[in-house]
């Protein structure tokens, strides 16, 4: 199994997380500027989960994401410019502007899309795992879903199916304690979410989702189990989102103290101190990393802003493959 190496996964993860943070920090601004239509759900605070999991994956693998999916895509290697362009509905977006934030797919990276239907990625990833198994490849698939999505019945069905068929899939629950404005405490009676996996015969673990090392290690374990043919794993990652659910969120359902308590456990700050302490980076390295992150995101934003809007004539393309078969 892959071990967490501060020089490798630590450093690489830090760069990714810094970039995601910078990227997501632009969302409220771009929403305010009305460059983003519809809904966009930033995941600042939750970077360690997507990043830790992605570091455990190989190019043959796939992911299915949810509405809060920019981080999942970026950590998987999506181009920040094309990702941003899709969020702004531009021609250079991965979907040419057809999808927007909730529908970013990247076939060549195995990204089966962010998704507007809470819970829907669970079945898609299960299917990707089935395809991998059928094809005799060692590919695994990952689905990211929230604590809210854990209440969708499809999760139970997927856990069971993946368990009996020993499908190579990682179910990654990002428990950020809220589903939109609903506190998980009011929405579930059994707070130990990993029981849901165990009940269906899926090895299930809790992990500190604010720790890159912990999420990486748990994911690497799950990936190894999947690749070796031993089936699925459920990971419950404890985490938190700093920003509102989406633009315009009044956040009446939580208080600032709670937000600050979680920010005190910030996954990036924590990783930085670890890497500083371990001598992997210096303070000035960290400054460089942050600058580089800003630069990348700034370039991405410029690229996206400058990308033209799609042509109206494109609207009727891509419904069927080159017309329906004759």
């Amino acid at each position, binding site marked *: 199994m892959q071990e967490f190496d501060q020089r490798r996964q630590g450093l690489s993860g830090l760069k990714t997380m810094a970039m995601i943070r910078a990227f997501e920090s632009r969302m409220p601004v771009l929403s305010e500027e009305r460059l983003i*239509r*519809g*809904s966009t759900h930033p995941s600042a605070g939750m970077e360690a989960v997507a990043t830790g999991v992605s570091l455990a994956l190989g190019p043959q693998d796939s992911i299915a994401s949810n509405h809060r999916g920019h981080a999942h895509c970026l950590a998987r290697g999506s181009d920040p410019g094309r990702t941003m362009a899709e969020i702004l*509905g*531009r021609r250079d977006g991965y*979907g040419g*502007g*057809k*999808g*927007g934030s*909730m*529908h970013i797919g990247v076939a060549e990276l195995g990204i089966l899309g962010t*998704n*507007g*239907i*809470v*819970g829907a990625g669970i079945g898609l990833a299960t299917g990707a795992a089935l395809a991998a198994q059928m094809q005799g490849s060692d590919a695994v698939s990952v689905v990211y879903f929230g604590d*809210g*999505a854990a*209440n*969708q*019945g499809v999760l139970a069905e997927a856990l069971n199916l993946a368990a009996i068929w020993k499908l190579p899939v990682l179910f990654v629950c990002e428990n950020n304690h809220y*589903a*939109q*404005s*609903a506190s998980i405490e*009011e*929405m*579930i009676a059994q707070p130990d979410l990993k029981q849901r996996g165990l009940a269906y015969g899926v090895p299930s673990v809790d992990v500190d989702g604010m720790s890159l090392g912990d999420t990486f290690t748990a994911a690497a374990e799950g990936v190894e189990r999947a690749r070796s043919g031993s089936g699925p794993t459920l990971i419950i990652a404890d985490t938190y989102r700093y920003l509102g659910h989406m633009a*315009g969120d*009044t956040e*009446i*359902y939580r208080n600032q103290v709670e937000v600050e308590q979680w920010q005190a456990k910030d996954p990036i700050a924590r990783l930085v101190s670890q890497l500083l302490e371990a001598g992997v980076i210096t303070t000035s390295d960290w400054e460089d990393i942050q600058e580089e992150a800003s630069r990348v995101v700034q370039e991405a934003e410029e690229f996206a802003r400058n990308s033209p*809007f*799609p*042509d*109206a*004539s*494109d*609207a*009727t393309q891509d*419904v069927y493959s080159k017309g329906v078969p004759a």
Partner: protein
Amino acid sequence: MTTKNLTTWRALNTALKDILQETPESLVMGEDITTWGTGGGIYGVTRKLFDEFGAERVRDTPISEEVLISTAVGAAMRGSRPILEIMYSDFTLLGFDGIINQAAKSRYMFGGQFDCPLVIRTNGGSGVGKAGQHSQSLETLFAHIPGLEVAVPATPADAYGLLRTAERSSNPTIFLEHKNLYYDKGAVDFEPVPFGRARVAREGTDLTVVATQQMLTRSLAAAERLQAEHGINAEVIDPRTLYPFDMETVLGSVRKTRHLMVAHEAVRDYGWGAEVSSSVVEQAWEELDAPPVRLGSARTPIPYSEPLESAVVPGVDEILTAMRKVRTAIAA
């Protein structure tokens, strides 16, 4: 009550308040309906109901559309009158068993023993960039199913009045609001609006236009231009409910205008406009001077980007062109 000028969401909010006040069996449930925004749901319709009516009758739910819908059905079969908010009509697809196999058939299959006084409030439609899974106009799917009633309010007054009627009905009602009309304002007289009774939104003599919601608004705008620019006077009819459907008002109008156009935001192919068009053709063949024309969205999912979204849903220009086409079909 006196007439007030209200937004659609506020009219709906008032209807819910009045219902909860007057009908002890009623309850309101849905995701994020008490904790979002200023204490209402995603578009504010349930605002402050919790404060007034409490946690028993105004219930935030987990994200579990399938069981929410079938739970509402079961509760309705046992004497409660649930009003369930499904955040977007696209999410009703997760509970189609409950709607189609259970709610719609619960009276019939058991020989009429059970009422099913259930209202599913939800919203459809495009126009705000919510993309493919939050913008569909699925009303045709519901209208096709025996046992369901389908309301498609366009104005604040109808939103109020139809919701009151939906709640009084002993049948399951799909109550489809339109997400891009919540902030429209209009006079509300706080009267129930009967199902199956169309509203003539604009009187005219030369062409009958049947349209709902956003297409109604656009059709009215197009009708003004049609008159001003081409001297053709369109009558615009809002059916308000797709089932029951007020064919009589439509036929009466067609007998006068001898021309028909139907405009909806649902996909045109196999959309409800075809039912209206072919029913009118069957029943008023001799009275039509030209073939009816249907307008609907293109056969595509709703795309995100503004120019694409506008391209697939009929706009005022397109409606105007279609209106002229109906009037000139024979000549052309």
